[in-house]
């Protein structure tokens, strides 16, 4: 479904702030893969997701989605078949518009916005049903503006908006990190349901070892803009959190991790 080859990205090239954020990433993702992406801070996880989403154009390399080369396409063009949920619950919705209106914007994802009114009673009813399934007590508040919702509610809604038109690719960037544990669990559960139901090809960045192992069928670990490990479903089922840490330790031995990084990973994931 997704084929990334030789992807490079350098920010602020030729300045003191130069960062080589992606160093030749190549990875092939099969249809229906649910990948969890882990790694230290600044290892390039978000940058990889942004590259796939089209937030910027890569310096080198290619991105092919469903046999189509999208490397040169703009983000809003890719958004026709790809959707994303951000870490910040404020990012994914238009806060001054109502729940129904936001869902309608998501509904228009792969269509032209023409000057005609299609947000009618029937559509609202459909949205109410969809919102009801979130079990977030939002079904009676369809006409409330997003500004009046809690972070968990917003994130659940953004997720719903992302899967409303069944995208080819779903990108999730630590979308539960800003939530309280209870909401976070709820949103993760919803994520699993949606991905399963839609058989969606998904990339999910997480900082929870637990999540990384329990969710999805493949885990990719990044470091310093490179993929340093790719763990298959079989392997994942065997591994425990401490196994994973051991894996980190092995990586250190092979000199792909420094002591500090190992320390940081321990802190981050346990």
């Amino acid at each position: 479904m997704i084929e990334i080859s030789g992807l490079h990205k350098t920010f602020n090239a030729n300045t003191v702030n130069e960062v080589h954020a992606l160093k030749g990433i190549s990875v092939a993702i099969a249809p229906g893969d649910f990948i969890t992406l882990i790694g230290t801070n600044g290892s390039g996880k978000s940058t990889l997701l942004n590259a796939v989403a089209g937030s910027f154009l890569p310096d080198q390399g290619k991105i092919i989605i469903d046999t189509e080369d999208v490397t040169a396409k703009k983000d809003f063009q890719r958004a026709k078949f790809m959707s994303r949920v951000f870490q910040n619950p404020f990012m994914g919705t238009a806060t001054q518009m109502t729940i129904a209106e936001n869902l309608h914007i998501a509904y228009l994802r792969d269509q032209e916005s023409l000057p005609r009114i299609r947000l009618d009673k029937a559509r609202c009813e459909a949205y109410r049903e969809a919102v009801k399934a979130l079990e977030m007590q939002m079904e009676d508040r369809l006409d409330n503006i997003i500004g009046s919702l809690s972070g968990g509610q917003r994130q659940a809604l953004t997720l719903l908006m992302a899967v409303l038109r069944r995208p080819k690719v779903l990108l999730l960037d630590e979308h539960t990190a800003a939530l309280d544990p209870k909401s976070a669990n709820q949103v993760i559960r919803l994520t699993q349901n949606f991905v399963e139901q839609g058989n969606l090809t998904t990339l999910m960045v997480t900082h929870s070892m637990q999540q990384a192992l329990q969710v999805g069928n493949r885990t990719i670990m990044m470091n310093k803009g490179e993929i340093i490990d790719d763990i298959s479903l079989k392997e994942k089922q065997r591994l425990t959190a401490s196994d994973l840490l051991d894996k980190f330790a092995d990586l250190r031995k092979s000199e792909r991790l420094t002591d500090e990084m190992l320390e940081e990973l321990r802190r981050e994931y346990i």
Partner: protein
Amino acid sequence: MELWVGALNLGFLYAFMTMGVFITFRIHDFPDITVDGSFTSGAAATAVLIAAGFNPPAALLAGMLIGMAAGAVTAWIHARLDINGLLAGILVMTGLYSVNLHVMGRSNIPLLNQATLFTWMQKINPGMHAEIWISCVLCVILAVFWLGMSLFFRTDLGLSMRATGNNPVMAAANGVNVNRMKIFGIALANGFVGLSGGLVAQYQGFADIGMGIGSVVIGLASVIIGESILRKPSIHVKVIGVIIGSVVFRWMIAFALYVGMNPIDLKLLTAGFVLATLVISGAVGKPESAKMTWAERFKAAISHNRMMIAVGGIVILAISIPGIRALLTHRPDAGKIHRIGIVQIVDHSMLNVTRDAFLEEMNRIGYQSGKNCLFQVENANGDMSSVNTILDKFLADRMDVIVPISTGCTQAAMHKIKDQPIVFATVANPFIIDAGRSDTDHLPNVTGVYGSVPMDKVLEMVRQVRKGKIRIGSIWDAGQVNSVYNVEQLKQVVQQDADVVFVGATVTGSSEVFQAAQSLAQQQIDMFVLAPDNIVYSALDSVIKVSESKKIPMVITDVERLSDGALCALGYDYATSGIQAAHLVDRILKGESPGSIPFEKYSRLTIGVNLRAARQMGIAIPSELLDRTTVIIAEDGKVVQKKELIHKAVQAKRLALFQFGDNELMNQAAHGVLDELKVQGVMETYPLRIDRKNAQNEFYMAQSIAQEIVSQNYDYIVTLSTPALQVTAQVNKLIPHIFGAVTDPYRMGIAKTQQDHIPNITGVATFQPVEKTIQVMREIFPRARRIGIVWNPAEACSEACTYKARDEVGKQGFELVEVNVSSTSEVMDAVRSLLTRGVDLFLTSGDNTVNMAFNSVAALLRERRIPYFSNSFSDVERGGFIAVGADYEEVGRETARMAARVISGEDVGRIPINNYLPEKMYVNRMLAKEYGMELPEAFLNRAAKIR
């Protein structure tokens, strides 16, 4: 009333602009300054096309399209070239200035004689007042607009647009092409702004290059006002909020004018208001504040924006001080302020004369409204129950003295008020309404001036006109005590004359008067003799109709109504009633008790004869009667008054002196007007009050002022400067209007020739003596070659002068080197660039932009020894070399002389426009010495002044 309706209409027209600002600022969160330029663009395109003969809707569409184009360019620069939005707006706005000038071809396009949407509207006017009809039509249009916009914002496109503005990241993530949407939204917004400009141009009757300045602030203020009035977040409420905000903003301006606040303070106040609202809404607008109480919100607002609030507070305080002071001037130093309530029953010339004379006399003896005294003048418009409401209001407002004018009002006042001084005026007989038993023995809180028309004198006059046996007919309202009293008096005197027969008819309302007059005519009367009666006199036209058709002459007791068609009139001069009442009020305010002040009778009689009516009826007026008359209506309808009575008989007239802005020349002209009006003696001969108005160089302010002048029904308008003339000419169709300090009224459509002008407008046209100046240049500098000129193409006057200069330089063998500027800050650079191009002489002519930088220009030229010529007399005082100029003070004087002719009764339509150029030369000899040249004696002798 008209003031508020006019403001409402402006509010409606500006609502489109406000919608544009709403879309940019609120929907797109894009501070778009383009609006200032695209407003003018819309106006320019519309005006040019209308002037070229296109039909108004097509022209308006073009205005909208040019606005859209402007907006699209701004958004494109911002989105595609990734330039800060504010900067992109400023760039486009600046560029539009030149574009607009090119589109217009000159700085000002008049539409006075063109068919506009508004003249179209008046064609289908079913008979309403023009402004009210416009309101009705605009109301419908805006209702449609409201509906349309509310629906638009709910369409897929509208929703995507709102999402883009609200959260561009989210919009892009959901497949919206953010850049394209921005370009579309900003273009649409500026389209509305252009539309608004096109509408306003048609409404005010011209487009001017400067008319868009300040639009962003007005629009933003309106949006914020709308939001603070309607707080619901739903989109259709927001859209109507935009319209309401725009109207309320206009009303605020109208109100400020109404209470006499200086418009300059109002502008600062607006700025402060917007700032304050932004500060507060900035904090409370945060999403987490949704559940906060108001106290918490306020606290949050303060803690979030401590700095801004402090600054804003200081600004607002500084700004509001003059405003507060303006309000306070209505009630200065408490304690010394006297409150006087005046109530009259109906608009009736006799009562109006009393009222105006009263106010005038109060003013004369030192009670100045707004300074040491507050006059509240109320009119019950013929409704007795309103009189009571008014009296209640007076009581609630703690009036010191209440002055009821007319018998009915006095009766009501005495009935209601027992412990407050009452001074009545123009009451026929206070004794029949139980005000007292004699002049000295009366109610303790009541005194006043009375007098009934002496019916014996009226009959005497009748007998002078018609000798022998006659039947006289009289009409009166039996329900009014004073009417009955007057008629009884008449009957008594008739009884003493065996040759006179009295025929009477009573009415119960003004609608019956016509029938009563007809029935009297059928009873073969020879003459109508009408005793004082408010109802009958309010329907005097009905009697006149019968009188004229049946050739029955009419004798009345109100000289003011003589010109309506009566044959002769004998009555009291009601001005004396008001004047005497003023002195009684004065005594009471100084501490006397009304109970101890005897009732006064008014004594001065006036007799009037209408020679035109006499001729029509074929009646010869005997000379002994003519000798006694004080007022004669001549055969051509002109009112001739005998000198000694003019002062008392003419009511106080009001003149509005309206100047567009404050600058040296305008102020000189204004000074000339004021001084010459005094010199001409009109101030004394006619009680004349002059109110000065100043638009502070703002077009939107000028419109409101013009509306206010018309709605306040001023008797005369004098305007100084071209824009003041233009805005006023558009709204004023009736009031005599004399203009001055205008370069070219012919180009503006005010007139075709000196004689052929708009009937109610005439004035003084003053072209600049450009040719003369250049001739003088040649005379003194026979070897000079190049003349440098700096001018602003946006100034109509400057433009005209430069064209003239271009023509004249050739004849004199000069070459003209031109540099254009658009603002004062550019002037110095322009002059420097001229200097590098080697000019021998420098000329500036009627250009306000250059004039503003005069001192530094003069200093620089002096240093470089370039002689500086100009057309403004005062320039030499400030360092110019030679000025051949119109003496604007003298122009003001000529304007005043023309005004004086109008005030003393001449018909404006017959006074030709005066092309008046009081040319004077002023020479700076000191500079001549510096240049090392000796000016010939003959030349110096021609100068009016030498420095």
